[in-house]
């Protein structure tokens, strides 16, 4: 469904990604792990046009989406690939409902009654229905991030990207966000998740990808990566993050 083909990314003289090849199949939950600064975020940002590869290609549903593509093609990518960010990035001057409904209204031209119904339904699923008229700064970080997930889901995407969705949260709020993500994974959503939550990776990941210094060092099932890693660096990273 999503594919990075020989993607290399340089910022100036600094090569952040080296010849990355990665395929995400329909229904998969691909979890990307690795040390800070290894290029995980840059990698996932290539999947929805926030970064352009210096060389190589990005494909969505077998069509090239990197390089200069038409407005219409960009639109198709944005409508089908949702993204959740580390800092939620809700629109602070919109209420929760407006945050959720704005894109479906202006991009998909749904009517107000349609988006109202949809946002109520999504909020109910996340147990946030009483927050519809609140402003983001009246909500906890965990609630904000779940609203951000709903905001993306309201566009009915085929793939959801998560870029360290729990890294900016207080520890007691991490769980509620992970729970929402697990629910989403169970519903069959194709997901790519950059995270340091190894529990999530083990439990939900259909594949775990270890990125180190801009390379995909190895990938496999959670069991293969967490218990039978081939590379010393992978083992080191995992033991460090699991047992400290």
């Amino acid at each position, binding site marked *: 469904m999503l594919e990075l083909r020989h993607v290399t990314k340089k910022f100036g003289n600094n090569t952040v990604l080296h010849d990355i090849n990665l395929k995400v199949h329909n229904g998969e939950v691909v979890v990307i792990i690795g040390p800070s600064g290894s290029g995980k975020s840059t990698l996932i940002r290539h999947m929805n046009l*926030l970064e352009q590869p210096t060389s190589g290609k990005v494909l969505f549903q077998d069509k090239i989406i990197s390089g200069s593509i038409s407005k219409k093609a960009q639109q198709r990518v944005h409508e089908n690939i949702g993204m959740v960010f580390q800092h939620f*990035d809700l629109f602070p*001057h919109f209420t929760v409902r407006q945050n959720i409904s*704005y894109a479906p209204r202006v*991009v998909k031209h749904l009517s107000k009654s349609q988006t109202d119904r949809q946002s109520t339904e999504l909020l109910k699923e996340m147990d946030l229905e009483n927050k519809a008229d609140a402003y983001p700064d009246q909500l906890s970080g965990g609630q904000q991030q779940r609203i951000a997930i709903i905001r993306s889901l309201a566009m009915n995407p085929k793939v959801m990207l998560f870029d360290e969705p729990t890294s900016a949260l207080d520890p007691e709020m991490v769980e509620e966000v992970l729970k929402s993500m697990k629910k989403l994974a169970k519903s069959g959503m194709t997901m790519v998740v950059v995270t340091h939550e190894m529990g999530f990776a083990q439990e939900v990941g259909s594949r775990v990808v270890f990125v180190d210094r801009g390379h995909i060092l190895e990938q496999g099932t959670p069991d293969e990566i967490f218990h039978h890693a081939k590379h010393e660096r992978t083992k080191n990273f995992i033991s460090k993050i699991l047992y400290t």
Partner: protein
Amino acid sequence: MFSNYSFITEYWPLFMHGLVTTIELAVISIVLGLLLGIALAVMKMSKSNLLSLIAKTYIGFIRNTPLLVQIYIVYIGLPQLLGFSVNDFVTGIVALTLYSGAYIAEIIRSGIQSLPVGQTEAAESLGIPSYRILLNIILPQAFKNILPALGNQLIGNVKDSSLVSVLGITDIMFAAQTVRGSTALGLEPMIIASALYLVICLILNQILALFERRMRHDA
């Protein structure tokens, strides 16, 4: 020297007319300057090098030349450019708009750049068209941050508008000059003029403070 204010009764209507004109000049030029400023700010930040260069050059020119010179350039240049003569009031508005637009552009640019880049990225990733990101997501937030600076610019426009009296626009300054000419009084008309400017600016300051407080309470 400070006792002879009997001219006031006779010339009060002239001063009041001037007061209205000054307010009109300031308000119209700030509104048009805001539109010009938004356009210039967007151009300056645009990915197109040409647009960015045009905006940069324009802003640099305005900021580094005196307003009085700019007023004369518009006064002489605008009719030549258009091919017909232009009413003095319009000339004054054009000059003040061109002037304040450059400053407002810088205010808006700093307001936009102070927002987290995540706002744009989140909106882009939802497929929201870029003009809507600017109008509905970025500008409303930026505007809230820059309101104090815009208020200062409005007050600046009130005071700077005194310079367009050289064109014969009957603003406060023009009224004061007229009284000086016809009464041979030196200081007193200027004292009245400064009092009127002071009153406008103090009232504006109060209104702006009220606005800011209200904005802070919202959301």
